Structures are given as C-alpha cells and as structure tokens.
C-alpha cells in the first residue's frame, strides 16, 4: 500500500449532550488514504460516512459536536491543531452533493472559482478570473468565457457540479473529499463527472476520498472500500476483495440488495432497519439484522481483525484471512 496521506485513527463524533440525548454518530473509525489513492467510504443513511468526511475538515458546529480521535493527520500534520483555514481549499478540498446550495446564488460562477485564488494565492482579480476560465475549460465546460459570467441558477446540474469541482481543484489540493458528488445527477451525466474525477486524480496525483451510498459508483471509482454501518467500520479491503469476496454479513447483504441492469434476478433485501442512534445495540451493530448472529454477537462488540493484505473485518463469525469467500458459498 502506498504511503498514507490521510490518517484517521479512533475517530469518535457525537452530537447533542446536555439537554438532548447524545447521538454517537461515528464510533471508533480508523482508515487511511494513500497518495494518489481513491478510497470510497460506502454506507447507507445513518452510517456516519458524511459525518466522518466533515470532521476531517472541522465542518461541524463545535458547540453541539464533540470530535475525538487518536490521530487525525494529513501527511503527519495534526489537523486538529493546524489552522484549518489554511488547510481547507489549499491542501484538502471538498465537493458536496448539492451544488445549487453549495454555490453562492448571487455571484457569478467565474468569480466564485477565482475567489480562493485571490485569497490563498494572492492573484489579482484579472489573473484569478483568467485562471478560473482555464479551470472551467479543463472541466470540459463548453464555452467557458461565457459560462464564467453565468449565475449558478443558469446552469444545469451537471454543469454546476463541474463548477464545484473546478473550485475545489483551483488550489491543486493533495486530497479531494467528494461527498456523494453525483447522487443528484442523471446517469449519463454522472458517468461524465466520474470520468472527470478519475482523470484529475490520475493527471495530478491527487488522492480522493469519496463518500457514497451507491455500490455501482464505488465499483467505478475505488481502489479500496471502507464499508460503514450505523457509525462503525465493518469491513475494509480492495475494491475486488469487498465486491467479489465480501466477508461481513452486512456487506454481503448490501451487495445482494443492489438491483443490477445485467441480472434479471430480484434483489434480496436485508430484513429490518437501522438501529436507533440513541439506542445503539451493545454487541455488534449489525446483529439485530444479521441472519447468522449468535448469542455473543448481541453482547460483545467484535474486535477489528487485520488481515495480511491490509484487509480488515469486524465480525465474530468470519475470519479475515479465511480461505472461503463466505459460509454460504
């Protein structure tokens, strides 16, 4: 595995406290992102995947959120003690799902891209706006000089997402965090944006941490996949390990419930629903929905097993380095 650029170890995020019941949204999450690597955090709603991404950049309200971690480092530098305004944008940038609400509606998009260049790089207005047009051209936006003068509402969803990516890449960050960047887009446009992100990573050696609920998008993009469920990491592995030989019963259930254009069979649902975040089960978080669960699964949290290939698995019943792909096969 490549040298780690981002290291997260023992991350815990909780909301509320005092008057409200405390919600532990992320519990004991650890993973790394290597240089030039694309790591996908895969999970359904309530898995804690977006909260994890946001806590890297300190995007939570400190009055209602408590973030604890053993390590939260970019290239050896502790992100909690660094000046985040210096890191944000220039070393780590972020792209959000909803470009319409992430862009400022009353400024022209060219100006918005140019702003970070003026603030962080000290370019003049003119230089920054020229650079913004160049960036838009690199994002394959047709007629970028014209488009730079548009307001966000005048652009299509795919075009707005390209503007956001142009903004994020303006300062050539080492790490791009993309939180469901294509979820609001049509599939033909989604594929364009995914291709664009892939090209940018390859050409610039940038690392990508992508958050998604879509197993298909993960398959398109990931070198490695971190599977999260109800605030916990349940399995980590290469894209092939996770999608071809999933070991955690949740990962297997998730893959089985995905409908596919290339298969006629009906997807198999996972019974039940997410646990209430205020009443997290004592043992394995997935035990209440797991068909294989035994008594200890309900009382004892599984330890993370670390496998030979860097694979990780949190399950009492499966071995991370076991030879079979799963007990069902």
């Amino acid at each position, binding site marked *: 595995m490549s040298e780690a650029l981002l290291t997260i170890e023992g991350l815990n995020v909780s909301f509320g406290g005092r008057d409200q019941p405390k919600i532990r949204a992320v519990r004991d999450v650890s993973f790394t992102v290597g240089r030039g690597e694309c790591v996908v955090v895969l999970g359904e709603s309530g898995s804690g995947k977006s909260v994890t991404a946001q806590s890297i950049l300190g995007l939570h309200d400190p009055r209602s959120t408590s973030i604890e971690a053993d390590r939260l480092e970019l290239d050896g530098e502790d992100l909690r003690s660094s000046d985040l305004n210096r890191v944000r944008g220039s070393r780590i940038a972020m792209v959000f799902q909803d470009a319409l609400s992430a862009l400022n509606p009353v400024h022209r998009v060219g100006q918005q891209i140019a702003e970070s260049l003026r603030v962080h790089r000290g370019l003049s207005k003119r230089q920054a706006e020229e650079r913004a047009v160049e960036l838009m051209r690199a994002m394959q936006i047709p007629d970028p000089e014209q488009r730079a003068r548009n307001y966000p509402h005048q652009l299509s969803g795919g075009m707005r997402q390209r503007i956001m990516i142009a903004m994020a890449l303006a300062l050539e960050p080492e790490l791009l965090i993309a939180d469901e960047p294509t979820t609001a887009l049509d599939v033909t446009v989604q594929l364009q944006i995914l291709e664009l992100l892939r090209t940018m990573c390859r050409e610039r050696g940038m690392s990508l941490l992508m958050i998604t*609920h879509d197993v*298909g998008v993960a398959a398109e993009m990931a070198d490695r996949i971190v599977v999260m469920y109800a605030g916990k990491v349940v399995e980590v592995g290469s894209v092939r390990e996770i999608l*071809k030989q999933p070991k955690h019963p949740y990962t297997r259930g998730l893959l089985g419930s995905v409908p596919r254009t290339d298969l006629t069979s009906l997807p198999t649902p996972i019974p039940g629903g997410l646990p209430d975040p205020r009443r997290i089960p004592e043992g394995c978080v997935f035990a209440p929905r797991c068909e294989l669960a035994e008594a200890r699964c309900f009382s004892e949290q599984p330890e993370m097993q670390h496998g030979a290939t860097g694979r990780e698995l949190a399950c009492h019943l499966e071995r991370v380095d076991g030879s079979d792909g799963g007990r069902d096969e």
Partner: protein
Amino acid sequence: MVVEMSEVLFEGVQLRKYFDTKRSGRGRATVKAVDGVDLVLRRGECLALVGESGCGKSTLATLVTRMEEPTSGEMRFDGNPVARDRRSALAFRRDVQIVLQDPFTSLNPRMTIEAVLREPFEIHADLVPRSGWRARSIELLEMVGLGEEHLGRYPHEFSGGQRQRVSIARALAVEPRVLVLDEPLSALDVSVQAQVVTLLKDLQSRLGLSYLFISHDLAVVRSMADRVAVMYLGRIVEEGSTESVYGDPRHPYTRALLSSSPVPDPDRRDEGGRILLSGDVPSPIDPPSGCAFRTRCWRALESCAQARPDLEPLHSGAEEHRVACFRAEDPEGV
C-alpha cells in the same frame, strides 16, 4: 402492435401536455413536456417508463392519474373513454392511484396514520361502512407489513421505508386496479429499497394490480418491469419487453443509458465499449429539429436533422419491440 383488446386496461393515444412558460427577457415559450405518446397498459403487467430528468415521465404520470388534463389526446380505461368532467375524475381515481417519490412530503405531518388511511373512506362513501373503517385500516397496514400498533402514530415516527409502506397502503385503500408508482424507491436506502420491491411484487400478484412504474434507475426497472418504455424529451424512443430492450437495445439513447448505469462489478470499468455521452439533455423549450437525440448521438446522419423518426416495430427483433430511430436496423459499428 397486436394486443387483444381484452388485455388492455388503460390506453393513452397521442397524449400531449404543453406548458406555457416565460423566457427570461425573450417573451413566451412552450415546453412540450409530453409530445405525442401512445401508451398501453395491460391487465396485471408492470410497465416501466424510464428516462432522465426532464424527459416528461412524471408529467405523463400526472396525465394518466388525471391530476393534469392533457393538452390533447385520448385516454381509455377498461374500454371506455375517460371523460373530462370532475365527477368522472372521482370515479376514475377509484381505479387509478398514485404513490409518490418522497415519503417525507407526501404524508401530512399533522395526521396520524389512522387519519391518513381514513380519508379515502370519507371521500368514497360507498367503499367501507363507518363501523368497518378501523378494521379495514388495520387490514391495509398488514398488507404492507405494518400493523395495528402503527395506527396512532404520526409520519415523523416512521423511517423512509415505513412511510413508503404507508403511502402504498393509502393508495390501496380504494381498491384500485392500477397503481402509478412515480419513483417510489429513489429516496430509500438500497437495503430498504429491496424490501419495498419485494412488497410491490407480492401485492401485484396477490391483488392482480397493473403498475405504471416510473423510474430513472434502470437496474430497479429490470427487477420490476415486464415491459419498458424509454423516454427522451417528451417522446417514447424505444419500447418492448424488458428482456428484449435490455438484451438487445436498439436506440442509441437506450444503449447509452444502459452503458452509463453503474454496475457493482469492478471488472466492468476496465472493459472497453462504454458509451460516454457528451453534454446535457437539450432544453425542451426548443428541442433539436428532427430526432431530438441527434445532438448527443454518435450515429447521427444528416437525415436525422430533417425528419423525426416514428416509433416503429423492428423487422429483425423480438415481437412488439419498437424503436424510433432511422438506424435501428443498421449493423453495429459506425
């Protein structure tokens, strides 16, 4: 198309829905949201309408459910013309009900589930005698995998999947024969999505329902539908059995859609032959001349700009597989 008349439950002929709109600073314009669609829904089948945003699939749903009147076109239900007056609309809705995409906004937050399910009985007075309302409500909840204990609760107490079950129960309260399902799964997590797919399939066979299933997700459609109609800019561009459309897609747009849909298999991304469309869907205010897809089509010829291709049966393909493309029968390659 050769379909036994007795098989046809709902039929729309040359349906059109135009909206007048203001163009910023350039006067008025007309959006042709649905522009000449023929639609046949057979008894007991699930017909899927697929397409991307702006293709007119949801507008078509509002026509089929009579929430909007078509600009022109005829509709027939069970062999009888659908009249346009208000009284017949009420009767029509006994037969045709809709389940909407967003289970958070389609249930009134101030109504208990019991009140939600009672409303259809109040509107259609001959449906269930008042003394039977509660029992029937419980029966409806049990049909969708919920139960009596949920009657007194409010929508916010439910998860997204449970709310969608409530919406389905409400639609079933009037014992309809057709359910129009407008993206009913898009707001749900995938593990929950599969639960609702299973429920819908089960209800369909138990109650003999016909579904018009509207979706942008080709993977979900494959698991649900018997037949598929692909829409682009207000028109159907390809239609046929799910098997033949997925197995042998002929319209370039259908092929691009299938090719762009992500598959959870990492081997796929290294395979060649992916079709990457450029640009976005053109504005429905001034669609391209001729074939509306030609501006994004890699097979377009000059003639595609001159005339609009009709939806016609394939000579070489499966029966009832129809395509609106001049090059539908041309061999692969160019």
